């Protein structure tokens, strides 16, 4: 109604030239007409159109307004569900199509109220709060589409989470009348409580043709691997109770059993275990003096003592999750939430999301008949493993169990991964909690390979205008047996490189690349001309390195192709006074960086430096004309988790007379700037990735009392 008044007040704009008193008159009249119109619409239009169209918008407040659909007795019933269904036989992949985002589109049927011929609803509860949460989460997600023609997956709004509240036959008929049902093709049903007395089937009993089932409590005999999705049984306590975060570690109790409906055979066995092992076990049951209802859900008792549930779960290292009538138990969710390691005893049970989650890292699965041995089995698990499992259990809950949204999104992601397997989430993405994701390293060059010597290496010389020194460097390097190619990166835009005839004659191909801008990062560009895996980055004034030293460096690189292998070593230090990192170029016992003025590394790192350098580090380096080597060291250490390798004791690189730490490096402002770089890069990386080591690589016989002429690398300078 507010809206209509607002509309009315806009009236004057339509008749601007009228006199004021007329205007008021018209405004009133117009408002009345408009009000009338809207009122008519409200009372007349809605009920009619709802009956006239089954697909009408759902944007309303009450489920009771959902259209009523009467299902005739004779309405067809779908087939029972084919156990041999797999994605390639029962799923129409053409509906999903090829799309650059590799994301399936999901359509949700609008809500309808299904009743049988005599008007009795097919479900005693109708839409549950959980299913409602699930559907709104999906409709809010990227998966959702409101365009039924573009959908790959269809989700009925018929709530089948709990089979107990359903009339099986009528529900099945309701599914079959869905406009896009088409033998259940590409339809997804969510069910958490399957089966009913007395047999408690382990999958939803509602006949459903080829529909996919996201079910809680599948057994290995009902679960169609790679087709169905095993989901958890949601515990409403997840939303209700906020448990304080507990660090992994030892707990007051070793094993705790909190379920109330445990079969007496098992209860007897648990009590026997309790007798044998005493205080380490805590066996809880329901409280006899409390009435049914939510209050009883939140309390547990043992010998007259009352415990708060689920809080008490946090007091135990392991928590028993035994099968009941059904295999899937909501207790599992509570146990995970409490960071207690679940001990799952439910033979043939398909664990929730087992297609992607590695339950071995978060739970212990014990066959039911081994219940009496539970204590011994659990005692044999190493402490650190228990702590790891506690952390993992809580993370699983947080990411995949905590809400209907989490459960729904995980289910859709699993199906999405099947349809676009080449874009599927990885094991690490699914299973590593963020702290592990943050601290763990998955090196992109993970295969242990020692590349053959024969392809050799490409020397990339960065130069500006020091031609004489450049030519000397080229002459020196060309003596190295494994040199495959020389690449001169000409960084001077104002001057052309010398004529071809003036260059030193070398036996390997020599190529000059001219750059567009004088940037330091040019030296790390992954030029197509670099055809070898190994790159030797070298400055145009490093003339002191001997051929033996360079060849040996290449040999060391072959043994460590995922590391920076270089000659001048440097160190980073924590300056306690200033509370920040400091750059150290003194001769120390430790090394954490090698300078790229002379270093071997894998061409892959060129690609990383150019395209994957985090933050604005590349620009910083080009702006300051400094620290490109530090940036490279950060990059490599961060992605591989490994320290660089310093080769040979060589100290002087530019001239025999130079001080060991030569030229530029001595300059005080230069040092300050490099310290600044380290601090800047550490903040961009969010961590200090550099690793400190105390070793360097020398030839096996270096300085050994052995004839020099028999050594492979005799000419290793010590200056």
């Amino acid at each position, binding site marked *: 109604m507010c809206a209509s008044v607002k509309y009315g007040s806009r009236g004057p704009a339509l008749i601007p030239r009228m006199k004021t008193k007329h205007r008021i008159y018209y405004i009133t009249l117009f408002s009345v007409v408009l009000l009338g119109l809207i009122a008519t619409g409200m009372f007349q239009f809605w009920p009619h159109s709802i009956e006239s169209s089954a697909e009408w918008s759902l944007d309303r407040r009450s489920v009771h307004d959902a259209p009523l659909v009467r299902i005739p007795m004779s309405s067809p019933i779908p087939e029972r569900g084919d156990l041999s269904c797999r994605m390639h036989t029962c799923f129409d992949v053409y509906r999903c199509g090829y799309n650059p985002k590799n994301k399936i589109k999901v359509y949700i049927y609008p809500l309808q109220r299904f009743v049988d011929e005599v008007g009795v609803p097919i479900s005693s509860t109708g839409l549950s709060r959980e299913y409602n949460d699930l559907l709104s989460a999906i409709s809010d997600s990227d998966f959702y589409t409101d365009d039924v023609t573009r959908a790959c997956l269809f989700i009925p709004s018929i709530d089948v989470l709990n089979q107990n509240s359903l009339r099986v036959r009528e529900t099945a008929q309701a599914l079959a009348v869905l406009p896009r049902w088409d033998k259940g093709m590409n339809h997804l049903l969510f069910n*958490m409580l399957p089966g009913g007395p007395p047999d408690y089937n382990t999958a939803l009993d509602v006949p459903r043709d080829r529909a996919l089932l996201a079910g809680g409590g599948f057994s290995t005999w009902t679960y169609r691997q790679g087709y169905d999705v095993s989901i958890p049984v949601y515990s409403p306590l997840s939303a209700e109770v906020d448990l304080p975060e507990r660090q992994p570690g030892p707990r007051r109790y070793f094993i705790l059993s909190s379920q109330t409906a445990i079969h007496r055979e098992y209860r007897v066995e648990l009590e026997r275990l309790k007798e044998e092992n005493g205080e380490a076990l805590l066996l809880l049951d329901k409280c006899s003096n409390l009435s049914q209802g939510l209050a009883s859900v939140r309390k547990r008792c043992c010998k007259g003592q009352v415990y708060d549930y689920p809080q008490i779960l946090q007091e135990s290292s392991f928590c028993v999750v035994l099968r009941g009538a059904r295999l899937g138990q909501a207790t599992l969710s509570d146990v995970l939430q409490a960071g207690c390691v679940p001990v799952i005893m439910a033979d043939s049970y398909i664990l929730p999301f087992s297609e992607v989650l590695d339950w071995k890292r978060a739970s212990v699965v014990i066959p039911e008949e081994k219940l009496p041995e539970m204590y011994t089995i659990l005692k044999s698990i190493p402490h650190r493993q228990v702590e790891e499992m506690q952390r993992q259990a809580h993370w699983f809950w947080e990411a995949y169990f905590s809400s209907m949204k989490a459960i729904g999104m995980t289910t859709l992601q699993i199906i999405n991964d099947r349809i676009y397997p080449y874009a599927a989430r990885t094991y690490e993405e699914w299973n590593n909690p963020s702290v592990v994701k943050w601290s763990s390293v998955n090196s992109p060059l993970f295969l242990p390979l020692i590349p053959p010597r024969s392809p050799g290496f490409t020397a990339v010389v960065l130069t500006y205008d020091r031609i004489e020194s450049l030519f000397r460097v080229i002459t020196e390097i060309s003596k190295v047996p494994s040199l495959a190619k020389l690449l001169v990166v000409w960084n001077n835009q104002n001057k052309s490189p010398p004529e071809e005839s003036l260059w030193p004659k070398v036996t390997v191909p020599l190529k000059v690349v001219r750059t567009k801008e004088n940037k330091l990062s040019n030296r790390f560009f992954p030029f197509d001309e670099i055809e070898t895996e190994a790159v030797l980055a070298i400055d145009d004034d490093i003339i002191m390195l001997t051929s033996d030293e360079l060849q040996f460096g290449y040999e060391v690189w072959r043994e460590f192709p995922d590391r920076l292998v270089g000659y001048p070593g440097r160190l980073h230090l924590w300056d306690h006074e200033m509370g920040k990192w400091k750059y150290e170029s003194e001769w120390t016992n430790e090394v954490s960086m090698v300078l790229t003025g002379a270093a071997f590394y894998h061409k892959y790192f060129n690609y990383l430096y150019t395209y994957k350098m985090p933050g604005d580090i590349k620009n910083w380096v080009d702006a300051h004309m400094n620290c490109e080597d530090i940036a490279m060291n950060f990059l490599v250490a961060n992605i591989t988790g490994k320290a660089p390798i310093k080769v040979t004791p060589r100290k002087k690189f530019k001239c025999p007379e130079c001080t060991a730490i030569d030229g530029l490096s001595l300059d005080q402002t230069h040092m300050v700037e490099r310290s600044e770089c380290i601090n800047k890069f550490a903040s961009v990386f969010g961590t200090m990735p550099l690793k400190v080591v105390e070793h360097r690589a020398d030839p096996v016989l270096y300085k050994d009392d052995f004839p020099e002429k028999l050594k492979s690398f005799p000419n290793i300078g010590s200056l």
Partner: protein
Amino acid sequence: MQAKKRYLISLLTGAFLVLLFYFGGGVPGPAATGSRSRHGYSRPEQPWPHFSDPLQHLSPWDHSDTEEYNVHISPRQKRDVNSSVYKGKRCRMQSCFDFSLCQRNGFKVYVYPQQKGEKISESYQNILSTIEGSRFYTSDPGQACLFVLSLDTLDRDQLSPQYVHNLKTKVQSLPLWNNGRNHLIFNLYSGTWPDYTEDLGFDIGQAMLAKASISTENFRPNFDVSIPLFSKEHPRTGGDRGYLKYNTIPPFRKYMLVFKGKRYLTGIGSDTRNALHHVHNAEDVVLLTTCKHGKDWQKHKDARCDKDNAEYDKYDYREMLHNSTFCLVPRGRRLGSFRFLEALQAACVPVMLSNGWELPFSEVIDWNTAAVIGDERLLLQIPSTVRSIHQDKILALRQQTQFLWEAYFSSVEKIVLTTLEIIQDRVLQQTSRSNLMWNSHPGGLFTLPQYSSYLGDFPFFYAKLGIKPNPKFTAVIHAVTPLVSQSQPILKLLVSVARSQYCAQIIVLWNCDKPLPAKHRWPATSVPIIVIEGENKVMSSRFQPYDSIISDAVLSLDEDTVLSTTEVDFAFTVWQSFPERIVGYPARSHFWDNNKERWGYTSKWTNDYSMVLTGAAIYHRYYHFLYTNFLPNSLKSMVDQLANCEDILMNFLVSAVTKLPPIKVTQKKQYKETMMAQSSRASRWADPDHFAQRQTCMNKFASWFGGMPLVHSQMRLDPVLFKDQVSILRKKYREIERL
């Protein structure tokens, strides 16, 4: 003006009435379009409404209805019902496998004795001898947990010459058959033209299948094992390494996607290959088929055949295999094909086009990390799919193909052992491998879960878990001479090792025939000294996984080793950077002796090395476990009998696991001299046979490993300032340089 006003009023009233009639009368609009637009207009971002109704909660707890169930049906009965109902095609471990057979003796495998007159194909013979040579083998059926037939079941294609007739009666007459319970049946080919069913042609009862080309429909999850199709020429042990020698950047090869193979024209499995020509572009996507196969191919020949055949002959299969980024692996008549293993070995990322094939070892291998799983129905999308795969992903996929090839597929032995380990994991449940152990280097065969269920206890996963090894070591000193004087080297050694800041404890392994010396004879040290009396006083006992070793690192020492505290400290800091390798002092090398056509061993000073002696070396304690539990008794007893070569065997083992050389660190001169001129009477190094034995050992070991696992290294790790011209006072490890 007035007229105008009146006119307007009547117009508005009229309009109002018309509208009223329109809505009130219930003329239905075009429902679908009306709703769409209205809907889109109102709240496009929230199509599922927020209901204000008090919706009922799902109550997931077992209530009165299930309580009754709990009282009446015994879970034991339920289990029995399950195991009696789920047989045949619905077999699972719970219903068709007798776990009790495995409880007493662990996971032992029995192979039926071979009967005279039974022909066994070479491939099956390889499978059987692998099992017989493995640590799982038992010759006593009473101890066995798993039974393997000596009847060749590999080829069940009736048209094949290898087909064994009357298998049904032969199997039924086996006294231990027990309807196939706890039996494992290997099969590569089943069914025949025209429908190629997956039936083996005899009743397998409750036996498990290790079968190639198995379909998801017939695959009984966690019961059967899908194995790869391998050829007769597939080596029994060792096997060639993967072809990937280095990671090229950018990772693209000459071709993007290739295939070369037969086209069946008609019948089962022919559709996909018949359609390949749609995707072939003769540039970077080269998919070639030939119609030539069988005798009467001309009869079925279609319009494309001549053109296809001509194109087919233009390309060399090997050349394409080695120069393509992706290799198409379409199904043949059967789901699996040789292409799969060929592509894997060639580091050509397999693009699977075989709907419904349960990929090899799918129970443990995450194939998304090494292959592209395509869908036959979406053949036309395959080129754009593979082109959309990012360079970094290609790099990872390619390396993973190599890891998987070498870990599980390169030999019959690996395929069989992987099959057995998968079944063992199911049987032992609690001590089974996690996904990470199977899918990352060094793979499941080298990662024994019996050692620990915690990944951080292994040397391989520190980086993946973001943790570091324990910063202490346990020294294990192998004592063989009685303690008579206070100047014996072992006492000096004890003192200098105990002085290391990283030393947690020292274990003296008393392998001397004389009784243990009194406690007070050992020097007083700040770390505990534990004396363990060797059980059989044999060489291998120095690599026993003693429970008292609590640190991750072990410093293994001979009693006559001379080592300073500084040297120990430095070696340990090096080991922390390479926890999966052996880090030690004196090194040795191997070489191929062309004249004698065998491996040679040298202790000469050379420019490279491939072993470091375990008389003074640091390595991860897991290798003790691996040495004791992974290596066969034949090798271990050889070492014990010779009282020699234990260090060579350890180096073989570690290099086979890591595929990398050990690391030599610098050592003081005097140590080397004592090593070189071993003159003490007791020293086994003085024995002239010693050297010849070591040569023999090497060749024996190499034959068991199926190749030479040792790798050469040309470098030695020294302290950063070693022999540097800086003041000695600045050097942390200055002792090493002093004589």
